């Protein structure tokens, strides 16, 4: 029972991450009609926003101590973070909360990145075949990745969650199921965060006229233009939002997964699967699929299940994808006519 509850939590948490990444993807994919292979790279850039912010906070004053030497014979350097020497208490507070605080930095940065990307590149590809979109965004993803690799190396860079939420929450006690049932605080925070972001994006696109215009523009941008609407500008905004959502997903994921330059590619395929299983052009579909796949993946990894079906944990996502796509022609909630040809 406990095990199932915990796996459910795992699944929801994982699902939150999938949904959040897929959400941005499906925005540009299902809404603007662009197959964006650079979406994973945006996720990665978000994570590196947190890394950079942390590095900036952690910039150190280097004092060379000539009296001591290192094992390889050079003078020893003594380092103290500037921020601590300047702000004292508040400095160490900032350092401690660097991951959540870096959201404030990441939002404008990702927005600018998204807008520049759309204005400079993607915009010219709205009318081009999907094949061209794939090639150009894949190229872009590689370039972004290599730039990050050049500056940060290939090794993962760990980011700590704030000390206050670094430990585990005693869920068992809350639910009256006795102790032994603990779950990391940060993962609960992540789940709450993804739910909030998803809800916000939803409300914006599904229930506002702005969202309706964007949906219309994706179907037929020429006609929408003829109705006096500057659809290009709105596309840019939507792309910016997608970049921000991906970036935030990346920022908040860093304490769970130490980021490295390749993490975007690792998530790319999975997020495509999530989007398509959810159904093209459907935001709720992407979210639903994200949670569904997350939960099923968790349950498939339970020992009891794995002893019955060896290796099921390796293929569960794809297996579910196949079954869903074969039983439901357009995924869970897909709209007719979107990316079917």
């Amino acid at each position, binding site marked *: 029972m406990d095990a199932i509850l915990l796996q459910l939590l795992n699944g929801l948490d994982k699902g939150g991450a999938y949904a959040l990444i897929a959400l941005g993807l499906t925005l540009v994919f299902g809404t603007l009609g662009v*197959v964006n292979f650079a979406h994973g790279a945006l996720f990665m850039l978000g994570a590196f926003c947190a890394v950079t912010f942390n590095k900036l906070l952690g910039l150190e004053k280097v004092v060379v101590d000539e009296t001591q030497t290192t094992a390889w014979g050079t003078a020893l350097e003594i380092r103290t973070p500037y921020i601590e020497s300047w702000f004292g208490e508040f400095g160490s507070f900032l350092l401690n909360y660097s991951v959540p605080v870096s959201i404030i930095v990441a939002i404008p940065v990702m927005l600018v990145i998204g807008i520049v990307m759309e204005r400079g*590149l993607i915009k*010219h590809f709205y009318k*081009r*075949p*999907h*094949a*061209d979109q*794939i*090639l*150009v965004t*894949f*190229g*872009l*993803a*590689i*370039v972004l*990745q*290599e*730039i990050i690799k*050049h500056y940060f190396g290939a090794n993962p860079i760990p980011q700590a969650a704030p000390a206050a939420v670094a430990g585990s929450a005693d869920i068992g006690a809350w639910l009256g199921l006795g102790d032994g049932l603990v779950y990391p605080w940060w993962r609960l925070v992540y789940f709450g965060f993804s739910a909030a972001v998803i809800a916000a994006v939803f409300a914006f696109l599904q229930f506002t006229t702005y969202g309706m215009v964007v949906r219309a523009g994706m179907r037929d941008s020429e006609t929408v233009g003829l109705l006096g609407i500057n659809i290009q500008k709105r596309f840019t905004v939507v792309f910016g939002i997608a970049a921000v959502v991906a970036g935030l997903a990346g920022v908040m994921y860093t304490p769970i997964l130490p980021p490295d330059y390749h993490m975007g590619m690792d998530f790319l*395929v999975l997020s*495509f*699967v999530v989007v*398509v*299983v959810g159904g*093209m052009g459907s935001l709720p579909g992407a979210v639903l699929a994200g949670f569904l796949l997350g939960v099923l993946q968790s349950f498939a990894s339970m020992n009891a299940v794995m002893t019955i079906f*060896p*290796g099921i944990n*390796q*293929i569960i996502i*794809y*297996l579910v*994808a*196949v079954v869903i*796509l*074969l039983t439901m*022609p*357009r*995924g869970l909630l*897909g709209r007719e006519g979107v*990316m*079917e*040809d």
Partner: protein
Amino acid sequence: MKEMLNREPFALAAFSLVILLMPIWLTPFGANYPDLLQKFAIFAIFAMGFNILFGLTGYLSFGHAAFLGVGSYAAVWSFKLFTMNVIPAIFFGVAFAGIFALAIGYVSLRRSGIYFSILTLAFAQMSYNLAYSVLTPITNGETGLQLTLQDPRIIDNAFTTPGAGLPETNLFGIDMSGYPGFYFCAVVLIICFFITRRIFNSPFGLTLRGIKSNQNRMGYTGLNTRPYTLTAFVISGMFAGLAGSLLAVTDPLAGAERMQWTASGEVVLMTILGGVGTLIGPMLGAWLIKYLENIFSSFNEITLEHFFSFLPEGLQSFAVELASLFVGEGWHLTLGVLFMLIVIFLPGGLMEGWRRLLRRFSGGGGGKSEPAAAVQPAE
């Protein structure tokens, strides 16, 4: 002139000449060594076959590497169980890939567009994951399936006594490593080119193009699209299996990573880079990517210093610094930049560039000439 170029024997002869003379004309590019030449031929087959599906029907498969992998495994098993002769290996490689493609295609082709792509991707990823772990007894997992001294090799062992080391793949006694391996692959490539050309120029090919253009219309035109797309899928799967078995022929090892999505993605990129739906574009794309992967990655600072040694000292180190971003460990960056440049400036891939060149040299088309240049103020 154009008529002559289009004539079948001429086209074939020209193509064969170019392929067979690769060891010579690739010398200035530093690409004239057997392994890379073999890869050029093999991946050209892979991409050409992929294009039969993607280029003609518009169905974008994201799982073609699975067939490549199946072809390789089948070929290596043929070497292990039966004989080092490559003919049975290729036969099994193509046959198994074909059967596999038939099964996956039959199911996946129930959907179109992105849904089809993801179905193929899912099947390929399942194959990859299983090959990497659970199916290790068949695939030898991460290490990859290799020849061993304990292999039964029943046909060979019935006629000859095995030597001390591992035997080499052969075509009735001719070793298939090195240059002979390349020429063998080249001949297979030429045959594949011939087949592809025939498919492109046949009613079958035209029908496939019709499916790409307007699948809906096809039905009301009295054509059953499913068997057409399935045939195209199986043919291209068999090309992939052939390429996979040739990989095993020239180098008898089959690894699971050949089936990973990145490998499927690579052939997609090759095809788009060269020019979707063109006859030789995918081949050019394959060459470009393989060239970058093998040659650009090999440049290191020392090679660069040599290269820029004609420059004065300061300039030289600057040039080396700058260039080293794009070669050696930076070769991926070159690849990414190249993808972007080509697709931005040559929509339609390398073949588009070729067409533009031709047009420039043949002095532009006829028709009405342009009025004076635009006098439009910008926005």
